[in-house]
């Protein structure tokens, strides 16, 4: 679909007409316009992927009384768990990495999971050390600083000041958290946690 779209654009660009296009040129332009409109509406109305023509499913589902979310935490030498600043995962987007853990990672064989977790633990630890030293962490800020485009979901800058940075990590854990949305309003700790994966540095 995209190849057709680009081919149509290249053909039309090569035939750019005068300020007042004749009927023939208008006919070709109309065909191109029709194609773009059909692709845009076709992808969305049928909810099919024709990227970059998108389905635009933006929170279209019913949200029930319970919520489930994956959670990656770092573990220090004393066994205390700490949330990890989303910027530590860059160049991965924290959102995508979390979904990838949910969808893909958990189904990989254990040796592969360990190799990937070792890389991620190193990455988190490198970012942690940089934050503790008051340096910039992550990759996305490198050109535009605070003016960079946020991710689709915004994340707290947990390690914004060196005092908020936890001690060195020796392990990485992945949990599946589940809670009742209404119950958690009254009791923020009312979360059931299931440990799905742990990697400890050898």
């Amino acid at each position, binding site marked *: 679909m995209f190849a057709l*779209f*680009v081919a149509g*654009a290249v053909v*039309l*660009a090569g035939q*750019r*007409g005068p*300020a*007042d*296009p004749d009927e023939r040129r208008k006919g070709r332009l*109309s065909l*191109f*316009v029709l194609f*773009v*409109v059909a692709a845009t509406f076709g992808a*969305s109305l049928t*909810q099919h*992927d024709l*990227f*970059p023509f*998108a*389905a*635009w*499913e*933006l*929170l*279209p589902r*019913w*949200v029930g009384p319970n*919520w489930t*979310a994956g959670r990656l935490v770092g573990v220090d030498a004393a066994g205390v768990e700490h*949330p990890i600043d*989303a910027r530590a995962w*860059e*160049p*991965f*987007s924290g959102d*995508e990495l979390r*979904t*990838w853990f949910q*969808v893909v990672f958990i189904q*990989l064989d254990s040796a*592969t999971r360990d*190799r*990937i977790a070792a*890389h991620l633990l190193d990455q988190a630890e490198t970012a942690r050390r940089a934050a503790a030293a008051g340096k910039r962490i992550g*990759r*996305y800020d*490198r050109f535009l600083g605070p003016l*960079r*485009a*946020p991710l*689709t*979901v*915004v*994340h*707290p800058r947990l390690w914004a000041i060196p005092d908020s940075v936890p001690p060195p990590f020796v392990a990485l854990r992945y949990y599946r958290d589940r809670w009742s*949305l*209404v119950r958690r*309003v009254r009791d923020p700790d009312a979360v059931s946690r299931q440990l799905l994966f742990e990697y400890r540095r050898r």
Partner: protein
Amino acid sequence: MIRVNVSFPAWWDRFWFTPCSPFGLAAARIAFALYSLWIVLSRDFPGVAGVPGEVWATVTPQTRWRYLIFPGHPALEYVLEGVAVAALVAAALGWRPRLSCLVSGLLLYHFAPYEALLWTDSPYFRGLDIPIIGLVILSVAPCADAWAVGARRRPHPLASPEYRWPLVLLQLLVASPYFFAGYGKLYYTGIRWASWENIRNHLLAFTQDDFFTVYTRLGSWVAAHPLLCGIIGAGTMLFELSFILSVFFPRLRRFYLPAALAFHAGILLSMNIYWLYWPLLAVLPDWDAVRERWTRLRSVSGAGASAGSATPLSRT
């Protein structure tokens, strides 16, 4: 009795090919190029190419070929990123727009899936889908006849249908996600989506999940008020499904433009969701009117009354 005589070909011709000035299209070119530059400079797509091979193991060869992604060559990807940045700067300046818009559109297509490819090959809603289509459309259009490098040296362009059809197409492109977001809700959940209970649960989920709890007060407060949740649910559906009317009836933009900005600010503050595409709303204002007002303002302030002697041109 009123007789409505609507001829579709006549309507089509009027809607897409009424001659208009080059300024709206020039503004669209600048908005699309600068916006895309903002996204590219705020990510590290080539960096993802350099992560361990195991991470890429589940991405199918078909998907890699579709986007021409061959992991393990970050240096090459950094070169391509540099080319994309140069092409976008050239597009923003209106320098070689046909080439710069096409090249940047193609490179953005290559880079767009990097963020999400690890688990989905449909990376929409991450900032680059609309710009890819928009930049390719701009590569067909005479989008650098105004507000571009060297444009002042050329004769003042006359109103033309060639400035109209791409601008309207871009406006439709920017407005369509609103409509389809509403349509998707009806498609998957039906009118029940707008119920107070669903809105409350959305708000609570997005303010309780520790991973993205930057703003929590507004969402929690609204979630505690069922009537407000119901109003927001119905209002969201109505707004999303009707926003597209602003493309067909430009006067409505006076309401829909500020309403859209308020809508996105509300969602950010209550649900921590950032609508990346808001700068692309710049394709909707009447740029001839903005330009005339600016010229008048400059004349009044005496800062160069002769500088902007605008020729009145038919508006978009």
